[in-house]
């Protein structure tokens, strides 16, 4: 875990560097029930029993309980995430719940589904609609988009961590080489050396990963990526998955990280975060760098 930015109220870091700015968890959905008609042919019941527990299952089957977490992008857009209890391989379900259009997009993700890459996340995106009483199902769906292709956003996750996402196309994301990250004024020589080594690594090794971009409505996007490239080259690394729903007018996103921590004995991770961003068009060597991994 990166050293926290000096905070006189924290003796030690309570969160990792992605989590600090997370908004309070949202309990708005407690008590609400939804019927989700998904394009995989399955209809689900989803009952938010409380602010922390939900019951869900296929139509006609038994409901099962799981603990969930929710963040709210706006009054009509909720981001819901839970890990299915007691299931192997680890399974995570993430929903973009769009109550304006009564649409839903779900991501069904697993870690360990491929034996050769035990820490790689694999995921399936499923579109669907929310059945509301007395109303026909919305025949529309959230859809893939190229709106963000070619754009760069610098996201701040915490007092001392930010990163640029360069959406180089509608299918790939890169991290610019940029400048070495700033360190707190009291950073030690060891921390500076670690930062310099990471920066040298970044210059030598293009970070490029597959991504998906889905538009929910004007200004609101659901996107994510899996850190797949490095994991496939070195299976001892983790192919973690980050998924976000973002308001691109405010340049603000909320999301989740479904992961294993290779720096900590592959400990399971599944947490929510918030990030606050700024578009920029600062040129970077990655803008024109050919991909060493893919033909595109």
């Amino acid at each position, binding site marked *: 875990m990166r050293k926290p*930015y*000096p*905070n*006189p*109220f*924290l003796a030690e870091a*309570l*969160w990792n560097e992605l989590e*600090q*700015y*997370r*908004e*309070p*968890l*949202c*309990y*708005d959905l*407690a008590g609400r029930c939804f019927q989700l008609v998904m394009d995989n042919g399955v209809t689900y019941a989803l009952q938010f029993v409380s*602010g922390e527990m939900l019951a869900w299952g296929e139509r006609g089957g038994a409901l099962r309980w799981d603990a969930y977490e929710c963040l*709210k*992008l*706006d*009054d009509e857009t909720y981001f819901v995430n839970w890990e299915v209890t007691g299931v192997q391989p680890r399974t995570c379900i993430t929903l973009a719940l769009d109550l304006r259009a009564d649409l839903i997009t779900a991501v069904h993700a697993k870690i360990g589904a491929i034996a050769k890459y035990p820490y790689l996340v694999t995921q399936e995106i499923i579109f669907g609609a929310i059945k509301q009483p007395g109303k026909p199902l919305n025949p529309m769906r959230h859809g893939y988009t190229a*709106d*963000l292709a070619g*754009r760069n956003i610098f996201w*701040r996750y915490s*007092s*001392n961590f930010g990163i640029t996402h360069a959406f180089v196309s509608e299918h790939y994301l890169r991290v610019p080489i940029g400048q070495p990250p700033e360190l*707190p*004024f*009291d950073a030690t020589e060891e921390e500076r050396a670690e930062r310099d080594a990471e920066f040298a690594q970044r210059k030598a090794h293009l970070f490029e990963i597959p991504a998906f971009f889905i538009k929910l409505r*004007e*200004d609101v996007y659901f996107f994510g990526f899996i850190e797949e490239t490095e994991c496939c080259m070195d299976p001892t690394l983790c192919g973690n998955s980050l998924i976000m729903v973002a308001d*691109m*007018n*405010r*340049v*603000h996103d909320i999301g989740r990280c479904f992961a294993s921590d290779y720096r900590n004995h592959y400990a399971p991770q599944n947490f929510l975060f918030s990030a*606050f*961003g*700024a*578009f*920029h*068009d600062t040129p970077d060597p990655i803008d024109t760098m050919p991909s060493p991994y893919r033909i595109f």
Partner: protein
Amino acid sequence: MSYNHRMIGQKIFNPVSPNPSIGGMKQYLEPPTNELAGKTLEVHLDGLPPVLIRFLDGTNLQWAKPGEAFRWEQYEAAKGDENLYLIKFLLAERSPVTHVTLVWDAVTTLVTCVLAVLGADGAHPRLVESTVYYGAQKLPRQPLAAGRHGLTDDLVGKRIIWRYNPNDEIMHVYHGSDHLRLGDSDKVLAPDADEEARKHYQAFLDREGIYPCYEEPTYYIKLREGFYLYSVTERNINRVLPNQGGNQLLILLNALRVRYIGRVFGYRGDGSIENDFIGGIGRFGPQPDKVESLQYPIYEQSEI
């Protein structure tokens, strides 16, 4: 861009949204919460009659004192933490304009109420006067909590640089137990500034000769470990420049995550009532700002 080099009126670069970014102090604001809908809160504030509040939905509430008919108000609520609520509403039938802010800690059951009045001081009609009441939530068959939120100096001597949008940062210097200063900043008018931004910039220029450092009265209230409520009232600026300032900013600070939500109450530049949530993300400022070495108080009452 940093807190001490501010570009006034700089447009926020946004190549994706068809509309200009919202900007100001609301861009990074979290959405209001609807989770109070259906809840009832019986508040006992020290020295005042109890009040029963019924949250009808996410934006409407009714309140009444014992034996009185319920009155209907429009409210907004935001969260400082999972169970810590900042609730605000105007009293629709009250004159002069009166604003209620409640901080309700649903874990400790403690409640603090800030009652703010606009225009109570006839000589300074823009100035907000506020009074703090401490109390607790009454739960069925349980005694009222004995503890109270209380004034604190925990923040004094510290400083936080707040970021409100991609272009703007401001440093709050918690300089003393009864006042706050803003970190020193050079302000430059952006080349593409619009008319409103030019007026805003001119207001800064008007202040600088007679108001060299932003220093305003403050009180700091501790809510629980790492959580604070503090008030900043633009009293000095309003007395120096009667057509400016006077507003009150109440900030619910999560010092652990270094985030805040707050509310502004007062007059906008166009004369309408401002009653808005604002919010920011921050980092503690490690080094003293030059305003911290200035004498205190900068603004003697006799001078203004």
